């Protein structure tokens, strides 16, 4: 394929830690192949050579936390033929979504020496709350094999094969005995979207929910099972308050276990 025929790729950063973009750079030998198939036209983290859009594929990392970014995502959408959000920040609001449960001005006052310079929104919201998104790739961080699957599928004009199964499905296929059943370790796997390959249960740890809620997540029933294993209210509250805290099923479950004296 001639160079001029390659589809163009742009990678955008919003409020995020850059870890998901790094997953792309971490693709090692596949990165060279990828660079041969896609014309990397805009990727600040990788190169200072930019070319103007429109772009055939945009990967968007990060959540919307400022008024300026709420405007910028519209221009990114406008110059992108396909827009794929990558990571928990972009798909659920990220760890910074914890501000949604508090007054962000308190955080600003506590963190910054000169809070008057900070212009920020009261909430952290996913990209899909602002513009239409063609595909959401979950995870904190994303899995690089899943990212390559999304890009390969884009290049072949097929649907990515990334099922919405629970993490339990990954454990069972890998032959990992359930950590809740065999040693009573609380695990978010039954309500968490697959994609990590059951990384934590493979090391006898419970799932932390990095990939966000699974389809049909029954968080209330899982919470009762955690209670039966001896988990207290505060631990349950915090378990659902991590990288995907603002995703609805996790948000509602954490609110159900909020401190009665501080009900958020």
């Amino acid at each position, binding site marked *: 394929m001639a160079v001029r025929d390659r589809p163009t790729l742009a990678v955008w950063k919003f409020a995020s830690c850059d870890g998901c973009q790094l997953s792309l750079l971490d693709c090692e030998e596949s990165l060279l192949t990828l660079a041969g198939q896609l014309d990397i036209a805009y990727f600040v983290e990788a190169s200072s050579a930019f070319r103007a859009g429109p772009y055939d594929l945009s990967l968007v990392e990060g959540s919307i936390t400022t008024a300026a970014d709420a405007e910028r995502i519209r221009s990114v959408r406008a110059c992108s033929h396909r827009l794929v959000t990558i990571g928990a920040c972009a798909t659920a609001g990220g760890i910074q979504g914890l501000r949604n449960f508090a007054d962000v001005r308190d955080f600003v006052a506590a963190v910054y020496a000169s809070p008057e310079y900070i212009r920020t929104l009261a909430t952290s919201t996913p990209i899909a709350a602002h513009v239409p998104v063609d595909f959401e790739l979950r995870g904190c961080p994303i899995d690089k094999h899943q990212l390559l699957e999304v890009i390969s599928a884009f290049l072949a004009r097929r649907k990515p*094969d990334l099922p919405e199964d629970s993490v339990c499905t990954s454990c069972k296929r890998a032959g990992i005995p359930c950590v809740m059943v065999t040693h009573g370790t609380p695990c978010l796997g039954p309500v968490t979207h697959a994609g990590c390959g059951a990384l934590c249960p493979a090391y006898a740890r419970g799932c932390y929910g990095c990939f966000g809620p699974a*389809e*049909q997540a*029954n968080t209330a029933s899982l919470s009762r099972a955690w209670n039966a294993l001896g988990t207290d209210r505060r631990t349950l509250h915090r378990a659902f308050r991590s990288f995907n805290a603002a995703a609805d099923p996790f948000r509602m479950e954490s609110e159900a276990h909020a401190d009665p004296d501080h009900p958020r």
Partner: protein
Amino acid sequence: MSPSAPAPARKGMIIDRDGLQSLLDRLSARGFDVIGPTVRDGAIIYDRISSVDVMPEGWTDDQDAARYRLARRSDMALFGYAVGPHSWRRFLQPPEERLWQATRQQVGLTIHTTAVPSAPYAFIGVRACELRAISIQDRVFLEGPHPDRRYAERRRGAFIVAVNCTEAGGTCFCASMGSGPRAADGFDLALTELIDANGHRFLLEVGTDAGAASVEDLPSRDADAGALVAAEEATARAAAGMRRKMATAGLKELLQANPEHPHWSEVAERCLACANCTLVCPTCFCSTVADYTDLRGHEADRVRRWDSCFAADFSSIHGGPVRASRRARYRQWMSHKLAHWIDQFDISGCVGCGRCITWCPVGIDITVEAAAIRAAPPRPAAGEGDDDGNA
């Protein structure tokens, strides 16, 4: 064979621990990939074994709904446990396998079929319920107009050493499903482990010519009447010790007559739709097929992997999944397993192994749920809305 009826007089030979090791050695020497029980990650699982030393000697399992714990036995039994999280299905129908790979050529494609590994399996320690499960999967995969060639290849070569259960596990109910605890057929060899005043030994019975050939000249002695009686008593004890029971009489008709029973909604309050029950079940057979292409578009893989009726993708068609709710999915799984399976394959899909009970993270118990539907009369149809949007 009814597990409560006295078994016909049987004969066999007695081997000891060394004899079992000799059997493993012979099977390996004959080119079998020997798979058996071993302890890993806090459970007794099935994997490659080369020696009796890696078997769960002196271990047992304490099982209940949503609970499995390894525990030490007071003796050195090798098969003193019930079934664990794995079943033989993961070898006969692997969780994920590439079916074929296509490579782009200057003109057209070449397609390479991925071969099934050539070494046949020898399964050590197959329980009666698991033999029934294998025979059920045989019906699913081998009978009918489209037999599964890959399953057939794996199954044809497999050598099966069964073990009769001498103790019931905490979630077992094979006796009420008529599938155990004694292996009636479907094995090459069957063992009954005996530990008593006469020592630690195995009654070995031969089921096939291949089984007979494998034990020719194996260090052994003829089974005396005492050993045969002890084996009968041991399996009878296992049957009598089962704490759970499935009332099967009229069960198919009961479930098929009650698709709107309020208990389905009650189960859905607890069900996680996580798919664990289906993936530990030794008879569940569903898989999906996915195609992958590489970045350059030069190679494509077709992969088959385990799927579950609890997944949204499983029943997705244009417009969304046919079974959108947990209620609809649990009802589908349980009523297929216990009722529609009989219409489809002329046998129940449940063998009473208890895995779905033990490995459900919230302890949903198929025997209890079936009993609840039997016990509680359904509410009148009027006013009983279907909350799924699918009947």
